[in-house]
């Protein structure tokens, strides 16, 4: 059952150099309990997608299209209605646990806050629940008393607090925007396991945003590859990794760190991607990747390539995808 559906989401923002297109027709569906990975280079619009869902785009940005959640178009809701959904039905975890917590409030208060606000729990009840949640995310009593302040915890422990806050109201969707980028390797694996566990346990949909293909491979069932504000490839994680149809996806793999060597079959490594991402102010008319693509042909330039279906719901927005050497 589709829980969250983005339909042709287009986000533009006014900049001193003119209007910039940050998201150009992003569409995808997220089903209840689905674990979806979104991967792409820095600046490709992953965070913008998440913020658009949250209704928290920068003030200068304009969003068009539809973000349908539980039958409502979030883009059309007012701030009050959005406040009822944020944190309650859709929660989010950020990249930087060192700054995502309020330095002057105790962790117990910060976890309890949502419970009191959204669920109307009393002070005592909220604190009891907060302690349970802290325990659930691996911060047991008495070592991690609710009276601790964020500065008394390590980065990994703080990220656990952030996850506890996100879980507090039992949301239907959890968006994790590069939740482990700021952490060391050991904590990274632990936090990802924790996210997978808690979301599976509550049949919560997980939108896992990352620039690391290995993270997608290990933690998600389906995935999107984004490039310059567009979804260029999508499908089950297994299918996308099996074929790697879009030239950009292959380039990403080549540029990704060694962690993949273990996770993937050999022979999947390629040279780094030459060239630069197009400016959001000056997007090319044709395929956004054409400037960097080794397979680019004249027919890639007149207009953006439509998405085409490969096998098993695997789709790619490319005229000359890998694995389709024979004309389709």
């Amino acid at each position, binding site marked *: 059952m589709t829980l969250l559906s983005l339909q042709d989401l287009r986000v533009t923002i006014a900049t001193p150099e003119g209007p910039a297109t940050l998201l150009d027709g992003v569409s995808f569906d997220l089903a209840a309990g689905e674990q979806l990975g979104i991967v792409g280079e820095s600046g490709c619009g992953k965070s913008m997608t998440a913020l658009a869902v949250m209704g928290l785009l920068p003030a200068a940005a304009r969003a068009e299209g539809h973000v349908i959640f539980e039958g409502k178009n979030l883009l059309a809701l007012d701030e009050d209605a959005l406040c009822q959904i944020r944190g309650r039905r859709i929660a989010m975890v950020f990249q930087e646990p060192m700054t995502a917590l309020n330095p002057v409030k105790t962790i117990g208060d910060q976890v309890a806050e*949502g419970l009191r606000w959204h669920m109307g729990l009393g002070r005592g009840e909220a604190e009891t629940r907060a302690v349970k949640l802290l325990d659930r995310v691996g911060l047991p009593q008495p070592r991690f008393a609710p009276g601790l302040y964020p500065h008394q915890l390590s980065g990994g422990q703080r990220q656990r607090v952030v996850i506890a*806050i996100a879980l507090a109201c039992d949301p239907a969707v959890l968006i994790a925007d590069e939740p482990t980028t700021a952490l060391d390797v050991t904590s990274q694996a632990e936090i990802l396991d924790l996210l997978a566990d808690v979301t599976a346990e509550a049949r919560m949909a997980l939108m896992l945003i990352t620039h690391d293909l290995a993270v997608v491979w290990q933690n998600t069932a389906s995935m999107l590859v984004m490039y310059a504000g567009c979804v260029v490839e999508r499908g089950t994680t297994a299918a996308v990794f099996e074929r790697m149809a879009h030239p950009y996806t292959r380039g990403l793999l080549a540029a990704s760190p060694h962690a993949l060597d273990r996770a993937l079959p050999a022979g999947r490594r390629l040279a780094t991607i030459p060239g630069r991402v197009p400016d959001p102010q000056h997007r090319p008319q044709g395929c956004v990747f054409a400037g960097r693509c080794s397979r680019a042909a004249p027919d890639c330039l007149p207009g953006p390539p439509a998405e085409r279906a490969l096998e098993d719901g695997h789709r790619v927005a490319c005229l000359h995808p890998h694995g389709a050497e024979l004309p389709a």
Partner: protein
Amino acid sequence: MSSETQTSALREYWQRGRGQANLMIGLAVTLTLVAVALVSLVWTPYTVSAIDIPGKLQPPSADHWLGTDQFGRDVLSRIMAGAVNSIAVSLVAVGIGAGIGVPLGALAAARRGLVEEVVMRFNDFTFAFPALLSAVMITALFGPGAINAIIAIGIFNIPVFARLTRAAALSLWKRDFVLAARVAGRGRTRITIDHILPNIASLLIVQMTIQFALAILAEAGLSYLGLGTQPPNPSWGKMLNEAQTLMFIAPQLAVFPGLAIMVTVLGLNLLGDGLRDLLDPRLRRLR
């Protein structure tokens, strides 16, 4: 959180604060001032406004520690009672300034756009006039007197607090934990109350001590000009004014209220400085 953590936080502040000379001196001066003012409410060596013409212009002596003025009134008693006046005026004036300025600044930062523009232009308008000048204008408009002095000083405090609050709040609105609070479904007002204000409280407290010192100076200045506290109520500024013509006969009449103002302002500034160091969260984290 629990009262236990609060007590231990207070104890921690005390441990660190004890070692800071400026904080301790400032605190001592301020507490002395408050104590003197409180005592004067129930007891002064002589009745504050009791006139004793034969005993006028006495130099300091065992009977009159700080001497008497041109009407034979005891200077020490008047300085003590003047402390009440200074504190009351400054407290209310800073209260007005912070009470209106902080919400305005917070609103401007939370709403941005047109609201911010209006608030800040209003601020610029008030700020454009030198503090004392605007106070003079207001008292000239509404007539001299302690209440109008309070309002005048209060009004020139508003933009100070509005600007400080807005600037500090704007930088906080960009912080991740505020975005996290928004993601958690908190509205702008709640975020301002729960996240923005607690994080700038220490900044505001420090600014308040400084504004308090400035307000004492301003009150003295206005009274000196005859626009503030009216006779026979004692005021340090008024005492200075009256001493002016007697400068060569009885210089002590100018010295003592002058000293009182100076020590108070210095003490409050030291206190503000000390609090700044004590409350700085970066220092707190280092421990």
